[in-house]
């Protein structure tokens, strides 16, 4: 349920043009073929009473409130399940249907608590509304009959209660769990009057397969499934539409408040990315924003061994400016830099890189995208000409074959995973390329056609072999390649070499050749083949090569430039795409334009009235190297916990310790803050005003639900630092920053807050050629003109298992937690994941004498840590896996300095390790 009422048309829209003319209570309306009578009525402005119907779910036809009479037809059909027919004349209010509706409502109320006035859903209850709508005046059956009023409540979930005595058995929760979320954790147990909603096989919600996405809570028309916050705080009174700040899916939410207190987050039906769905993090895990750990005052200290001292904003900003300038005076202009954050808004990121380029006077700005998707930017730019995914999320609904490479969408990108799973349930085939048997490989109503369980680090060998099959078996889309691409002949000659055959690489990749061939044929032969990938592609020594390898494969098979195809990164953070777009790489100005391009620099120099260096700045790992070397001494870290998230932490901490000034701007005193001299309190997403750009290039508005608790917007703080350093920067509103971005970035020229408020969101490029944005890229030609085939030679990583470190560690994410856990660890989500766990294969466990739950020591050549073991056949032998959500585990203590050859994106996904029982 949701307070801010969006129109509910009862049944989902049908595709196609409006061609069927019908009359509802005498009102003419023209709708698409297959549209339900109920929806047609709603479109005509006629509300038909309903309880089991909602336009997010397929028509079900169970409540029988929506019966109507249709001229020329017998009986009283349910309007939700009856499609329109040309010339149909429907009567929604007749004595006959009125009597039936009252009869149905009389039955409902004969088995429902009569506690409306004290019920948590009072005022937001469809049963209550419908009792009024049908004019119920009496319940002749009385209230003494058989009933469910004594049914026991289930309060096991930390975020919502299940009160079955209020259940009307409409199945909306069950259907939402299946149709929308795709988990199928809920069912109806028993039959007839004994029918009851049940999580799993009569388990509690917490013990069941429920992933706590909350779709059931949202779907419930009564108080049966209700947010605990609504029970505690009461009904919200107002609502603000904003964007989630967790993963790169970028879900739209209505933040519903009571006064100034946030009561609940309800996914927004009009949200382009999520279309009304959410996951446990976005919907429920917002408690960190008001967690007592949050620091709201600026703090300063001389040395990192000193105690923190709370100071005024003026003093904090003045200290940063003074000390930065002092470092530059002593060690040169290049001795300072900044790291921008993919968690922050486009506007905030833009001002950070502007501060670096204009106020610092160098290009030493990098972003946390360095450690996740920098190879995406490089690889897609080289091949297609644009550093971004090619499709919108909606496109997956047109895919016939879906390839998921190095991504675990059900945990990492759950809302997109639900959209993907829906398509898979409709019959699309699935190929999973991953060392680990992720949930998608086999989950309710879904089974991968092929799971290529490759050895970590052999991605390029696999993608080359896939392409080899396409090329040598005549599966190339010759027309597409000839018209749209260049470099094919050279690439094809390379890829057709026998050493790239599935048989030849089987020994390297561990993927059976016949399985790989079958997968290649499936993808290449599909009318629409779509590739989705994650950090399992990028975080490798050949991350960039792999991105180009996938681009080659997609081009060779003609899988670009329309719905249902493409090469699509699943971005890890809410604004990875945006932070990259905003010029936070050291070699690129906003819009991915190289700093060495004189014409581009001139534009910015004119606008900013400062010279811009043509020399690329330092990348994050270079900054650490330079810091250890003593030439880089001042760092502004914006909302990123590099002392937890970056690889080879001993090196990171050595670098941070070596610096004269580390400034951390964050919500919490994070691990990095331990090395900081100045702490600037940040604003949570609920306090931000600006935009995020999600993985589908969709620019979403982030609207302030409350004022910044620290008293300042983050963009303001950055501007004040720049100003204090002698470069005045000021804006009265973040929309002015977006206007500046639009004025200098060709792909953003049409973007403004006004446009976003009008359209809801827009996918860049958005300019005079595409005034309402670009859902699918490279439609008629590639951004760079011709798509470019790049030869992708497989070069094995230097990181390989040895006698001393015989296992390969790979890392990933779990649904309930998010990255370093700074937020999710400060919410009830810990109920699902209290600690990081090391997964290993039963065989690897047995030979080491490890049993499930043992505490084990995990060591690589650079460091070691301890954590608990979970024995799981999801892992192949020789490969172990852990998450990195908890600082106490310090998974990155063991990850190494190895990185992608082109972008220095760390090789998180391959570390040679040994595991043994901790003594």
């Amino acid at each position: 349920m949701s307070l801010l009422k969006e129109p509910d048309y009862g049944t989902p829209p049908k595709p196609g043009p409006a061609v069927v003319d019908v009359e509802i209570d005498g009102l003419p309306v023209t709708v698409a073929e297959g549209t339900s009578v109920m929806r047609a009525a709603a479109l005509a402005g006629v509300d038909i009473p309903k309880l089991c119907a909602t336009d997010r779910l397929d028509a079900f036809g169970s409540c029988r409130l929506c019966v109507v009479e249709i001229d020329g037809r017998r009986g009283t059909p349910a309007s939700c399940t009856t499609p329109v027919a040309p010339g149909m004349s429907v009567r929604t209010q007749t004595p006959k249907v009125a009597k039936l509706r009252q009869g149905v409502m009389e039955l409902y109320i004969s088995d429902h608590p009569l506690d409306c006035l004290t019920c948590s859903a009072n005022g937001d209850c469809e049963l209550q509304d419908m009792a009024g709508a049908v004019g119920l005046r009496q319940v002749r059956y009385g209230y003494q009959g058989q009933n469910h009023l004594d049914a026991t409540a289930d309060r096991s979930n930390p975020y919502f209660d299940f009160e079955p005595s209020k259940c009307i058995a409409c199945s909306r929760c069950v259907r939402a769990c299946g149709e929308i979320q795709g988990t199928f954790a809920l069912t109806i147990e028993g039959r007839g009057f004994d029918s009851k909603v049940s999580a799993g096989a009569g388990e509690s919600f917490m013990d069941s397969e429920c992933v706590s996405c909350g779709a059931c809570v949202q779907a419930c028309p009564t108080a049966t499934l209700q947010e605990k916050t609504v029970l505690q705080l009461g009904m919200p009174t107002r609502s603000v539409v904003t964007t989630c700040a967790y993963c790169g899916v970028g879900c739209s939410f209505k933040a519903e408040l009571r006064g100034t207190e946030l009561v609940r987050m309800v996914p927004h039906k009009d949200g382009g990315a999520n279309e009304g769905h959410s996951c446990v993090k976005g919907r429920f895990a917002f408690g960190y924003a008001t967690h007592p750990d949050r620091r709201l005052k600026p703090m300063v200290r001389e040395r990192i061994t000193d105690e923190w001292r709370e100071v005024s904003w003026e003093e904090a900003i003045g200290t940063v400016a003074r000390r930065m300038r002092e470092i530059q005076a002593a060690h040169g202009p290049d001795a300072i830099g900044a790291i921008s954050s993919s968690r922050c808004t486009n506007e905030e990121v833009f001002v950070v890189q502007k501060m670096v380029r204009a106020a610092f006077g160098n290009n030493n700005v990098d972003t946390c995208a360095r450690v996740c998707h920098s190879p995406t930017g490089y690889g897609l730019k080289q091949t297609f000409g644009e550093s971004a995914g090619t499709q919108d999320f909606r496109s997956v609904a047109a895919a016939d074959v879906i390839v998921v490479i190095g991504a675990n969408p059900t945990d990492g990108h759950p809302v997109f995973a639900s959209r993907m799973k829906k398509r898979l349930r409709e019959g699309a085939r699935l190929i999973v390329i991953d060392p680990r048997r992720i949930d998608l490989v086999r989950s309710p109503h879904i089974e991968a056609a092929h799971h290529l369980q490759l050895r970590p680090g052999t991605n390029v060998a696999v993608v080359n072999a896939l392409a080899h099959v396409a090329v040598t078996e005549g599966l190339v889309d010759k027309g597409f390649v000839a018209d749209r691409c260049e470099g094919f002949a050279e690439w094809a000659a390379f890829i057709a070499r026998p050493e790239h055959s599935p048989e030849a690489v089987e020994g390297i990749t561990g993927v059976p050749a016949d399985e790989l061939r079958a997968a290649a044929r499936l993808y290449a032969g599909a009318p629409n083949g779509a590739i989705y990938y994650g950090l399992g592609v990028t975080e490798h020594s050949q991350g960039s090569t792999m991105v180009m390898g996938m681009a080659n494969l997609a081009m060779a098979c003609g899988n670009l430039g329309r719905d249902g195809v493409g090469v699509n990164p699943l971005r890890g953070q809410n604004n990875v795409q945006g932070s990259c777009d905003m010029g936070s790489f050291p070699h690129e100005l906003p819009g991915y334009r190289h700093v060495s391009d004189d014409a581009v620099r001139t534009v910015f120099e004119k606008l900013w009235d400062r010279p811009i260096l043509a020399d690329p700045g330092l990348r994050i790992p270079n900054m650490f190297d330079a810091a250890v070397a003593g030439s880089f001494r001042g760092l502004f870290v914006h909302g990123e916990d590099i002392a937890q998230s970056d690889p080879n932490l001993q090196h990171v901490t050595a670098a941070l310790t070596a610096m004269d000034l580390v400034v951390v701007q964050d919500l919490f005193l994070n691990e990095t803050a331990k090395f900081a001299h100045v702490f600037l309190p940040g604003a949570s997403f609920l306090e931000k005003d600006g935009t995020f750009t999600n993985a589908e290039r969709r620019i979403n508005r982030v609207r302030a639900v409350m004022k910044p608790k620290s008293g300042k917007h983050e963009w303001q703080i950055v501007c004040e630092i720049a100003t204090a350093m002698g470069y005045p920067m000021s804006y009265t509103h973040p929309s002015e920053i977006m206007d500046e971005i639009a004025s200098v970035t060709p792909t953003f020229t049409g973007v403004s807050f006004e446009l976003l408020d009008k359209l809801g969101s827009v996918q860049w490029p958005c300019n005079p050629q595409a005034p309402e944005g670009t859902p699918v890229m490279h439609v008629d030609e590639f951004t760079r003109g011709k798509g470019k085939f790049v030869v992708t030679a497989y070069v094995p990583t230097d990181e390989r298992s040895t006698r001393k470190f015989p296992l390969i560690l790979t890392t990933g994410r779990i649904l309930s937690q998010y990255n370093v856990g700074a937020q999710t660890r400060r919410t009830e989500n810990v109920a699902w994941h209290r600690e990081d766990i090391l997964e290993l294969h039963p065989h690897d466990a047995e030979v080491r004498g490890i049993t499930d739950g043992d505490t084990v020591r995990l060591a690589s050549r650079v460091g070691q840590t301890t954590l608990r073991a979970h024995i799981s056949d999801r892992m192949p032998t020789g490969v172990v896996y852990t998450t990195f959500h908890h600082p106490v585990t310090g998974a990155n203590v063991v990850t190494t300095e190895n990185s992608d050859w082109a972008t220095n994106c760390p090789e998180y996904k391959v570390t040679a390790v040994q595991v043994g029982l901790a003594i």
Partner: protein
Amino acid sequence: MSHVISEQRMANQIAANQRHLPEADAVAAVAGHIDRFWNSFLRSRLYALVDAGAAGLDPVVVKAVERIRT
């Protein structure tokens, strides 16, 4: 580990990823990449390595450095 080794490792890795090319092309590719993406601090460190005898450096890297400097 020292930062000097970082530049050596990074440059050698770039060269390794161009090894499928004829040497002249590989040299051009490595030079182009370093020129386009490396900061002057890194480049100067790499030059210093070359000047110190190029121990442990891929010959393609050495040639690429020569090319960038000229």
